[in-house]
Structure formats: structure tokens, C-alpha cells
């Protein structure tokens, strides 16, 4: 057992984590599991000059952004700003009209299916609607990538699958079909499938939507644990403001075909009215609380 189910609560430092220091937002800033600050400087995913339009509607115009190795990046923006599309582009499911996308150095936009399959072996993706195969049981869905890509025995696969299902808080769902699960359970089962192969990069499209508060905390803790202890690069789209701000090392706000990026603290100090308007009351309160905690720590 890999102990995923015992992931620490998000934002709460765990004892015995050497070299960890905590900033005002309750995050580990200097040591992120296996990833050092120097390693994190390099973009694990690089997006350069990307343009994309669906018919007359331009989604991206010269979008440039980096997603650092071993960091949690949260994509924010209003509906239709291209958050999910950007995730699909990183996964090679959507090709840009212009520009380039590199994942761990591999060019995505010109790769053929075989090349993309190699890149995708390093990626995990949680789709907004789960995208589980509806004719297969939950167990078989989660076991599928292991059966396809590893030589593990059925008992090893069963152990791993049950471990991941327990980590997302799903017990006794092995034989259920996806259609028999609630929306929140479906999403958690899909997350279990996305992490079962221990990818380097996890793309999560709205991982918290449709979850009740205890499960939001559970998933937040799990994602933070994966990032901190396993150096997972996490790219998340979310409208769940407080959770996103708590988790994020970097926030990318998509707007007008491009993006504004910065740390949560930088966003807090932004005077851009559009940013403040987007963050809204919850986000602003959270950020100012973080800011004053940081001031207190410095004082």
C-alpha cells in the first residue's frame, strides 16, 4: 500500500518534513517533495504564442505561459476563456492554430498519435465529466491503464486500485457502473484513475465541482500530498476560489486571449480592477487574510 489514504490535510505542514518552511499562506515554499527550487525554475509545460479560434470566436491570441515542474498552477478565468481548452491542448487533444506547446521538452502540436501516446504516458487527466467508460465497472475503469501499460499481476493491480479508491474516499464501489455513481463519486473515481499510474503531470479540469465540503478537503489534501511528496506537477482549472488560492503556487488568469500570471500574493496586491473583480469577495478576503498573516510573520 502506498498510503495515499493518509495524505495530510492541505495547507497543514506535517511533522518530519525536512527543510520545509511555511509562508503566510500555510504552504511549503522551499522544498516541494522531490523538486528543488532550482528544478522548479524550468517549465515542465511550456506554451508559446498559441492562437486558437473556433470559427469566428478567438479563444487564444498569442498565449504564452509556463507551468513549473513540481508546482501547483491554477487556471482561472470566466466561462469561455479557454481553461479546459488549454488543458486539452497540453494533453494533445486539441491542436493550436499557431504557436507551440511543449510537455517535458516534447513538442505536442506536431506529434503524431504514437508520439502523443509517449507523452501521455507521463500525463494524467481528470475530465470535467469524469469520462469513465460507462460499460465497465469502477474497478475495471481504474485498473484499465495498469492492465494496458504495466506487467503487474491482478493482485498487485487490485491492491493499487483499492489504494487509490480509498485515497479519494471511495469504498465498496468496485462492481458499480459509472452510471450508478453520484456526480461527486464519479469525479472521485475519475481522479483515482488519473493518478493510478503515478503520472508526472496531472491535469485537473474542475476537480472540486459537485463535491461536498468534506470531499473538497479530501481531494485538496490528496492533490497537495501528491504535489508535495511526489513532486507531481499539477495544472488545475477551478472556480472554487478559496481552495484554489490555498493550493496554488501560481495562478494564471485567462482573459482576452492571453493570461495574467502570478503567485496568490501577487494577485492580492494587484490593482487591476478586472483581477479584483474576478477574484470577488471570497477571493479578496482570503488573499487579504493571507497577506496580513504574511505581514505578521515578517514582523
Amino acid at each position: 500500500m502506498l498510503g495515499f489514504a493518509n495524505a495530510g490535510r492541505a495547507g497543514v505542514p506535517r511533522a518530519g518534513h525536512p527543510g520545509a518552511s511555511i509562508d503566510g499562506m500555510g504552504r511549503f515554499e522551499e522544498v516541494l517533495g522531490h523538486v528543488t527550487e532550482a528544478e522548479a525554475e524550468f517549465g515542465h509545460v511550456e506554451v508559446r504564442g498559441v492562437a486558437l479560434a473556433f470559427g469566428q470566436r478567438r479563444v487564444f491570441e498569442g498565449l504564452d505561459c509556463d507551468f513549473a515542474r513540481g508546482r501547483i498552477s491554477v487556471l482561472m478565468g470566466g466561462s469561455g476563456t479557454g481553461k479546459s481548452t488549454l488543458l486539452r491542448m497540453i494533453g494533445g487533444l486539441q491542436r493550436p492554430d499557431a504557436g507551440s506547446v511543449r510537455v517535458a521538452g516534447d513538442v505536442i502540436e506536431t506529434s503524431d498519435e504514437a508520439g502523443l501516446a509517449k507523452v501521455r504516458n507521463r500525463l494524467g487527466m481528470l475530465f470535467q465529466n469524469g469520462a469513465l467508460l460507462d460499460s465497465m465497472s469502477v474497478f475495471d475503469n481504474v485498473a484499465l491503464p495498469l492492465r494496458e501499460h504495466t506487467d503487474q499481476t491482478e493482485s498487485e493491480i487490485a491492491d493499487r486500485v483499492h489504494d487509490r479508491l480509498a485515497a479519494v474516499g471511495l469504498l465498496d464501489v468496485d462492481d458499480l457502473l459509472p452510471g450508478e455513481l453520484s456526480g461527486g463519486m464519479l469525479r472521485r473515481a475519475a481522479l483515482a484513475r488519473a493518478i493510478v499510474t503515478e503520472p508526472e503531470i496531472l491535469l485537473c479540469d474542475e476537480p472540486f465541482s459537485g463535491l461536498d465540503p468534506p470531499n473538497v478537503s479530501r481531494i485538496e489534501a490528496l492533490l497537495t500530498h501528491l504535489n508535495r511528496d511526489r513532486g507531481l506537477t499539477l495544472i488545475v482549472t477551478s472556480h472554487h476560489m478559496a481552495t484554489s488560492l490555498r493550493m496554488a503556487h501560481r495562478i494564471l488568469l485567462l482573459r482576452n486571449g492571453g493570461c495574467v500570471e502570478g503567485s496568490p500574493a501577487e494577485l492580492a496586491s494587484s490593482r487591476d480592477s478586472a483581477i479584483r473583480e474576478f477574484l470577488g469577495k471570497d477571493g479578496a478576503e482570503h488573499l487579504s487574510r493571507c497577506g496580513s498573516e504574511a505581514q505578521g510573520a515578517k514582523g
Partner: protein
Amino acid sequence: MMNRIRKLGADSLGQVEEIGEVVRFGGRILLATTRPPFRWRSFMAAVFDSGVLSVALICASGITVGFVLGLQLYNTLARFGAEDSLGTAVGLSLIRELGPVLTGLLVTGRAGSAITAEIGAMRISQQLDGLRMMAIDPIHFIVMPRATALAFVMPLLSAIFVALGISGAYLIGVELLGLDGGSYLAGLESAVEFRADVLQSLVKSLIFGLLLGLIATWRGYSCEPHSAGVSRATTSTVVTASICILLADYLLTALWSV
């Protein structure tokens, strides 16, 4: 006027482009059959869905077509005093033409449309994208077993259709209308040749199965990603596959007799 010509040109180019895409898609299915592992479980499940679950429809259709053929051909042949040729006429028309063609059309309506709808629903619910993101080729995992299953079951279903059609015509001609059973069977046996008739029938149904497998899976795989798109793709499968089966039937008949 110019706009109409432009539209016609654009539509024609679109059609040519789609034919190219279908051929490429067919090539990818073919390639997938050579790449291990062969998806035996999915293949057998598809054989069950497309084949076993179609048996009742094929049996009912086969026997009723046999009834109608027996009745119509008996009445026609009786005008020329050639009732004894009923076995020959029924056997040749069922084995060469009606068996493979009607089976192809029936399987198109029952199983082909279902496969299009299934794959289309998987497309709109992002299940195919989910597979791609797990580095699993949807053509290998989803499309190939279904397409090959259609090609596998079509000759078998056609054989069942032909057998029941011949039996149905026997019941009408011999049991109901009083034709001699021995002359019915003797006419059938002497007229039907393995290479010219039975093999032609099997080859035809195999090709109809391949065509239907390609069209049904392509329509589902490429449907517009919304419910109306799935509905349109399903209708299109039935129309396109039916026309293709009838055209292919003519071509194969012409080529076989050369």
C-alpha cells in the same frame, strides 16, 4: 449562380475529403488488427451484441421471406407448368442475392446503427478522449473489435437467413401447395454450385460486413459532439450503409460473372 457553383464545389471537395478520411480510418482499423493484443473479450462481446442478438430478427425475416418467395414463385412458375423448378429458383435467388443483401440491410438497421450510437455517445461524453489520455488508442480498443465482429457475424447470419428462407419456401411449396418434396430438394441440389453460388454468397456477406463495420464505426467516431449529431450519424449509417451494400452487391455480381 456563382455562389451555387462555389457551394457545389465546396460540397464536392468536402465529400472527396471525407472519402479520404474514411479510407485512412479503414487503414487504421486494419493496422489495429495486426497490433497485439487482439481484444478477444471486446470482440466476443461485440459478436454477441451484433450477432447473437440479431439471430431472432434474422430467423423471423428469413422464414417469412421464404414464405413469400415460395408463394410468389410457385404461382409464377405454375403459369409455365414449371412448379418443379421451385427449389432451384428459391435456392438461387436466396443464396446469390436475397440472403446476403437482406441480411446486410437488417444487420445495418439493428446492429450498425447501435454501434454508431454507442461510439457517438462515447465521443460526446469524452470517453474516447479519456482513452487517448491514458495512451490507449480508441481505434484499437473500441473500434477494431466492433468492426471485425460485424465482418465475422455477417456471413453466419446470412447462412442462417438462407437456410430458413429455403425451409420457409419448402413449407409453402410442399406442405401447403402440394409440390413434391423430392423434386423441390433435387432441384435445389442440382442447381446450386459451391463456387458460383455458396462461395459468392459468403464473399458478398463478408464484404457487406466489412463495409458496414467501417461505415458504422466511422460515423460514430466522427459524429458532431452533441446529441443531435449522434442522431444524425445513426441515420446516416443506415442510409449510407444500405446504399453501399446495394451498390457493392451489383458490382460483386457483375465481377463474379466475368
